[in-house]
C-alpha cells in the first residue's frame, strides 16, 4: 500500500481509538473533553455536528473542518457538516470509500495527514478551490465500524503533528457515539415521520358531502409506532352511504401498507354494490392472498339516509355505538364474523339496524377503548356512557367528545380511528345553495326526490317535478355565469297540495341558446302547472308550481 501512496501523504501512526502519545497542552485537552458534554447528545444531528466542528476549529486553530458520514447503502462518504468549506455540504459531495483523501481514511481506518495538497491525491476539488494547503483527517469509528471521517484543513502550509492527530482522533472518538446516536435517532424519526405520512395519505383527506347525512372522522396516530387503522365513508349508488372502519393487526409500515390495500379493495367492492357481508367475504379472500398472513378486523355498513335502514357486517370488530337524537346511547350488537384473514371460508352475516332522523352511528377502533386494567365489557360500557353523555349527535363534536372522554391525553399506545355518520331529518322546506357545476345535478335530484316523497308526492309527481327542476338548475349552471366559481339557490316548499320551486342564480341573464335550452324550457312548461322566468340585473329566477295529483 505504501508504494501506491502519492507523494505528500503521510500516515500518522495512531490507532483509531488511541490516546495522544504526547501530552496535549492542558487547555487543549480540557477543550477536547468538552466534546463529551452530555448536552451534545441531546442535540439533533445537524446541530450536534455544527457544534462539534466549531469546537474542533477552535481547539486545533484550523481554517476548515468537515464531517463526512458513511452512507452504508452506497459505501460513500457524504459531507454532512462543514466549517470554512460549507460548499462541501451545499454541493452534496460524495466520496467513495477507498478513493481520495477522506475515502482512504475510511478504507484504511487510520489518520492521514497531507502536508501539501497540491501534490496529493485529493479527489474533492472544493478542497483546492478554497485554498486549503494542508489537511489532517481521522476516521470516526463506532464499535469497530467506520461511520465517517472528520477532517481539518489549513490555508497556510502546516505540518500537523502527532499531537494534533491525537487530539483530532480523541475528538472523533468522543463524537462518534453521539453522532451515531443522533443519526440513529434521526433515521428512526425520519422513518416514523414518513410512515405516519404514508398512513395519512392512505386515509381519506376529505369526507364526501352526502345528501341528508353528516359525517366526521378522527385519526390519532399511536405514540411511538405507526398503526394499521383506517376509516372510510363512501357515496354509493342511489344515494346510499357506505361507512367502514378497520384495524390491521400489528404496527409499522407493513401494517399501514396492508391497510391501504384493504381500504382500496373495500372501496372497489362497495362501489360495485356488493352488500356488506359479501364485501367482507371478498375482502377476506383478498387478504388470504397477501403475503405474511395479515389479519384485520373490519366493520362495514350501508345506510339509506332516506329510510334510515342500515345493513352492517362485522369481521371481529368491536360493536359500534348508536347515539339517538334524544340522548340515549346503545351498543350496536351485530353478528360477529371472524377477523379477516383468520379462517378459511369465513362468512359474514349481515345485521339490520335503523337510524331515526338525528341519530348517529359511531364506529371506532379498539385504541379508543384501550385501558389495560379493565375487562372489555367495562370498557364498552365506558364508551356507551360517554356517548350518552354527548351534548348532541352532530358528528364533529361527537368525535371530539368521545376522544375527550376516552383518550383525554390524545396520546395512545395504539392508534385510534373514529368515524361518525348522522342521518339528518328531512326539513319542511328544502333550501340548498349549490356550486354552479354540472356534477351537483345528481345531488339535487337525490335531495329533491327524498323531500318530495316525504311530503307525500307520488311517483308521477316526483318524476315530473324532477324533470322541471333539473332543467331549471341546468339552466342556472349553463347560462347564467361567466367561467369561475359561482353558486345558485334552490328552494322548494309545499303549500296545501301545491309544490313551489324557486331556482335563483346570481349572474346576468343570457338568452337561451339553440334548440337544446329551448327543449329545457319546453320540458319545464310541460311538467309544471306554472313556470315564470324573471330576469334581473343581479341574476335570474325561475319560479314553478305544480299541484300534486296524488
Amino acid at each position: 500500500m505504501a508504494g501506491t501512496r502519492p507523494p505528500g501523504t503521510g500516515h500518522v501512526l495512531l490507532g483509531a481509538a488511541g490516546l495522544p502519545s504526547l501530552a496535549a497542552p492542558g487547555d487543549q485537552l480540557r477543550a477536547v473533553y468538552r466534546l463529551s458534554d452530555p448536552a451534545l447528545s441531546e442535540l439533533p444531528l445537524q446541530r450536534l455536528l455544527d457544534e462539534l466542528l466549531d469546537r474542533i476549529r477552535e481547539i486545533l486553530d484550523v481554517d476548515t473542518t468537515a464531517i463526512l458520514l458513511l452512507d452504508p447503502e452506497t459505501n460513500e462518504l457524504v459531507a454532512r457538516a462543514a466549517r470554512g468549506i460549507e460548499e462541501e455540504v451545499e454541493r452534496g459531495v460524495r466520496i467513495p470509500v477507498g478513493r481520495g483523501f477522506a475515502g482512504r481514511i475510511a478504507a484504511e481506518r487510520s489518520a492521514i495527514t497531507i502536508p501539501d495538497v497540491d501534490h496529493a491525491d485529493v479527489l474533492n476539488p472544493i478542497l483546492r478551490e478554497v485554498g486549503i494547503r494542508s489537511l489532517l483527517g481521522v476516521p470516526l469509528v463506532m464499535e469497530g465500524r467506520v461511520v465517517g471521517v472528520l477532517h481539518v484543513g489549513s490555508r497556510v502550509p502546516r505540518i500537523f503533528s502527532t499531537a494534533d492527530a491525537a487530539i483530532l482522533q480523541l475528538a472523533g472518538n468522543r463524537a462518534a457515539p453521539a453522532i451515531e446516536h443522533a443519526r440513529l435517532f434521526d433515521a428512526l424519526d425520519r422513518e416514523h415521520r414518513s410512515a405516519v405520512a404514508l398512513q395519512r395519505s392512505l386515509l381519506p383527506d376529505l369526507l364526501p358531502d352526502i345528501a341528508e347525512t353528516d359525517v366526521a372522522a378522527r385519526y390519532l396516530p399511536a405514540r411511538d409506532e405507526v398503526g394499521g387503522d383506517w376509516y372510510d365513508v363512501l357515496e354509493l349508488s342511489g344515494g346510499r352511504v357506505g361507512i367502514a372502519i378497520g384495524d390491521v393487526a400489528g404496527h409499522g409500515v407493513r401494517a399501514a401498507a396492508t391497510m391501504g390495500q384493504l381500504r382500496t379493495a373495500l372501496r372497489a367492492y362497495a362501489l360495485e354494490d356488493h352488500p356488506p357481508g359479501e364485501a367482507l367475504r371478498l375482502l377476506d379472500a383478498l387478504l388470504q392472498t397477501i403475503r405474511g398472513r395479515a389479519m384485520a378486523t373490519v366493520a362495514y355498513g350501508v345506510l339509506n339516509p332516506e329510510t334510515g335502514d342500515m345493513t352492517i357486517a362485522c369481521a371481529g370488530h368491536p360493536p359500534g355505538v348508536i347515539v339517538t337524537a334524544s340522548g340515549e346511547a346503545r351498543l350496536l350488537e351485530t353478528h360477529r364474523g371472524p377477523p379477516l384473514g383468520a379462517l378459511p371460508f369465513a362468512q359474514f352475516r349481515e345485521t339490520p339496524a335503523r337510524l331515526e332522523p338525528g341519530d348517529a352511528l359511531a364506529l371506532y377502533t379498539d385504541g379508543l377503548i384501550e385501558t389495560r386494567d379493565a375487562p372489555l365489557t367495562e370498557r364498552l360500557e365506558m364508551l356507551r356512557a360517554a356517548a350518552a353523555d354527548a351534548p348532541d349527535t352532530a358528528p364533529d363534536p361527537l368525535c371530539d367528545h368521545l376522544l375527550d372522554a376516552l383518550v383525554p391525553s390524545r396520546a395512545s399506545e395504539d392508534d385510534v380511528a373514529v368515524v361518525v355518520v348522522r342521518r339528518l331529518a328531512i326539513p319542511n322546506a328544502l333550501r340548498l345553495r349549490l356550486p354552479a357545476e354540472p356534477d351537483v345535478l345528481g345531488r339535487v335530484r337525490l335531495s329533491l326526490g327524498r323531500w318530495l316523497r316525504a311530503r307525500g308526492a307520488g311517483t308521477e309527481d316526483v318524476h315530473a317535478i324532477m324533470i322541471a327542476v333539473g332543467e331549471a338548475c341546468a339552466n342556472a349552471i349553463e347560462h347564467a355565469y361567466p367561467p369561475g366559481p359561482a353558486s345558485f339557490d334552490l328552494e322548494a316548499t309545499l303549500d296545501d297540495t301545491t309544490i313551489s320551486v324557486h331556482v335563483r342564480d346570481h349572474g346576468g341573464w343570457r338568452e337561451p341558446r339553440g334548440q337544446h335550452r329551448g327543449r329545457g324550457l319546453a320540458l319545464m312548461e310541460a311538467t309544471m302547472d306554472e313556470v315564470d322566468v324573471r330576469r334581473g340585473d343581479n341574476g335570474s329566477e325561475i319560479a314553478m308550481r305544480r299541484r300534486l295529483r296524488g
Partner: protein
Amino acid sequence: MNAQLARLQLRDSGAFVVAEIAGEIDMSNADDLGRTMSGRLTNDSAGLIVDLSAVTYLDSAAIHTIYELRERLTSRALVLRLVVPPDAPTLLALRLTGVPDAVALFDTVAAAEAG
C-alpha cells in the same frame, strides 16, 4: 367521491353495437356517453342500439345527445334505435321532446335488433 351517475356497457351484436346504459343522464355525462357510443361504431356497423331500460332519469342534455347521435349516424347511413319499455320513467321526457317521432323506439333489445 361522487357515486357514478351512469354505467355504460358496449357490446357487439351482429352488425349492431348495443349500448346498455344504467343510471341517470344529465348535462354532466351526456356528451361523454354520446361520444363513447359513437366512437365504437366502425364502417362495418349497421348501427347503434341504445338500451335505456335501466335509465331512471334523463334531461334535455341527454335528449340533445340523442338528436346529435341521430344526425351523426344518419350522415354515415347508419341507424339509431332506442330501447325504451312502455313503463320506463324516461318515456315522459322523450315524448315531451318529440324523440319518438325522430328515432325508432323498441320495447326490447331483441325487437330493436330485428328492426
